[in-house]
């Protein structure tokens, strides 16, 4: 393979990588550079759903929302939580859900999502047992998580979607370009056909993943799980076999381009998260609150608990969403905490941490 061909291939790979990495880095730098005010409390009126959508943006995983929302409702006095048969929860409705007095600039539509979930839980009876919940609830909860995901997508600016699409298309174009360059260079176009398989496998996998749930392969099913090794085999076997018969330099160039394409399509492009100044304002406040909790010394937290004995239980739902409960455990373990009135069971270790 000639030096010119190698340089052309490397340039194309580098270009596609730059197109994907630059918006990703820009988004991350903007998030990092934004001024994060120190917040001792979660912004007034914000719910765990606000935290989830604003903090994680389009990469929010709303399936883990249930515990946090339950704790949030309990801390606001709408429900009580009891342990049920050591492995479940009994939720008792105390009063109807009401809108917070101030939503402090956060999106009020997240309250509608909460209301819908509350309605699902307590529409028939005032007591909800997780262990006796019918599978119908799964569908209802799915609708809730879909709404959360939809809400989360709105948090990132429209440019993120554009850049994701552009970087994916560039990656595919560069892959095809490199393969054509390699084929021309080694004067054996047939051998490069083996590299169509990984591209087809990656494309098919993406297509299956983005298919709507009703028409496509259901989420969490083993068939969906099976697709990973299947497409891995379909893509890698022909490509590896072809590489073994190629000149080592040509094989290395093709292999590198395959790796770059995979990296862009499955890792970098999906993480592009560019936000405008308005969107960054909420993100910064949540970050400030998170940083305070992580960096605060035990005596600072102790002072806050002295002011408000329920402080820990009020921030707990948000800690769940921010995934910092494990980090906070040693700090709060040192502070004497009374169990909150709304929690009547002995599930602290399971539910809280």
């Amino acid at each position, binding site marked *: 393979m000639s030096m010119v061909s190698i340089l052309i291939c490397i340039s194309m790979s580098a270009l596609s990588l730059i197109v994907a990495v630059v918006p990703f880095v820009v988004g991350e730098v903007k998030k990092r550079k934004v001024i994060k005010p120190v917040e001792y409390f979660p912004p007034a009126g914000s719910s765990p759903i606000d935290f989830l959508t604003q903090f994680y943006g389009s990469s929010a995983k709303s399936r883990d929302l249930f515990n946090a929302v339950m704790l949030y409702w309990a801390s606001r006095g709408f429900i009580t939580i009891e342990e*049920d*048969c*050591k*492995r*479940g929860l009994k939720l008792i409705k105390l009063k109807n859900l009401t809108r917070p007095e101030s939503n402090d600039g956060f999106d009020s539509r997240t309250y509608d999502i909460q209301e819908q979930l509350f309605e699902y839980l307590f529409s028939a*009876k005032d*007591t909800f*047992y*997780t*262990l*006796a*919940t*019918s*599978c119908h*609830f*799964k569908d209802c*909860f799915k609708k809730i998580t879909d709404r959360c995901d939809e809400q989360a997508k709105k948090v990132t600016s429209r440019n993120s979607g554009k850049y994701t699409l552009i970087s994916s298309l560039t990656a595919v174009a560069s892959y095809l370009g490199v393969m054509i360059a390699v084929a021309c260079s080694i004067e054996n176009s047939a051998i490069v056909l083996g590299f169509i398989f990984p591209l087809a496998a990656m494309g098919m996998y993406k297509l299956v993943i983005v298919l709507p749930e009703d028409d496509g392969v259901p989420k969490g*099913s*083993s*068939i969906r*799980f*099976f697709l990973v*090794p*299947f497409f*891995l*085999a379909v893509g*890698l*076997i022909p490509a*590896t*076999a072809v590489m*073994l*018969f190629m000149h080592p330099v040509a094989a290395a160039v093709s292999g590198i381009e395959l790796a770059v394409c995979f990296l862009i399509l499955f890792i970098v492009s999906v993480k592009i998260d560019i936000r405008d100044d308005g969107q960054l304002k909420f993100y910064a406040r949540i970050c400030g609150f998170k940083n305070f909790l992580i960096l605060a010394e035990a005596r600072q937290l102790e002072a806050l608990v002295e002011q408000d004995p329920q402080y820990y239980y009020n921030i707990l739902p948000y800690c769940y969403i921010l995934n910092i409960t494990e980090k906070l455990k040693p700090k709060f373990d040192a502070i004497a905490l009374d169990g909150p009135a709304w929690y009547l069971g002995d599930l602290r*270790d*399971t539910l809280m941490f």
Partner: protein
Amino acid sequence: MYKPVPYHIAAAGVYGCIVILCALALYYGLRAKRNVKKEKVTALARGFSPLDIQRIFIGKTYPRKLTRALIVHWAQLGYLRVEYVSKYRVKLVCLRKPPEHNEEKAVFFDRGTYVRERDLFNEIFSRQGEAKTVNILKALFKRDDVRSINASYAVREDEGVYSSKHYKLKVFSFILSVMPFFINGAYLCATGSFVGVIMPFVMFVGMFVFRFLRELPIVFRTVWSAFWVIPMLALMIVFFNDTFDPLFLGWASVVMLLFGGFVLIRFVDYREKNNLSDYSDLINYKKYLLYTNKKILKDVDYYEVLPYLYTFNIKVLVKRKFNTDTLPDWYVSDNGKRGKLL
């Protein structure tokens, strides 16, 4: 074609995987047993179902295998009257239906098990007073009914039994069991046999379908997977037989795939803290039934423990220790014959 350096690297990898998987199986296999407390458990909570025992032990229930245990359990709770028909056949008469799980009358150990058990009962009896003659050696329910009842609840049976760490460990063990095959494939490539690339992937597809595509019928799944896996195993052995293989890498990878993937992986078991405590109680109760002498057990109500004897599969071993002279109130036998149920 034998190449010493790649060969010894491959050997280190293959035997490393074997050692790690054996260590995991040994450590986690004994974890639940290590946590069994030294205490005497002489009775289980009222309403403790045979299905609870299965759930606590293995994280799922097989009501089709518990016909006798469930009949006795339901009769003891007053839901059934049992009439003798023949040695292996009894007539079940529904006296009342199990109450809803949220009613005060409902007696159970675990709500999740109870709601399923209640549905199973309702599957047999649609109304009070209904009678059915059943063979106690056959399943009471159809497989599809059990499946659909299980699937009709949002919370899985193994919730609270196995944590996510358990499933991560299982996946890790599965990877360890197939890894030697991939290492051998890489070694074959290094020696110039490029078919080494294809073998592991083809084998992996077969294994994956067999292990994880539970929706497919077992016979079809086995045959389909066998077509993918067995030729690859044979090919691996043939390839290594043709080369100098003093450390038996070919055989080691095949043995690891089958023994590790199907046997050792079963010992990798990581339970939730609460489940460990229930597990300990059940083991201690089983020990109590097995090893307590006749003088003490003579005063214990045999029919109360009978469902558990069936579930633990120790009825034959311990029945003689109990006083079985009188028939229980719920059992009707005109000719005084007991049948095999009791």
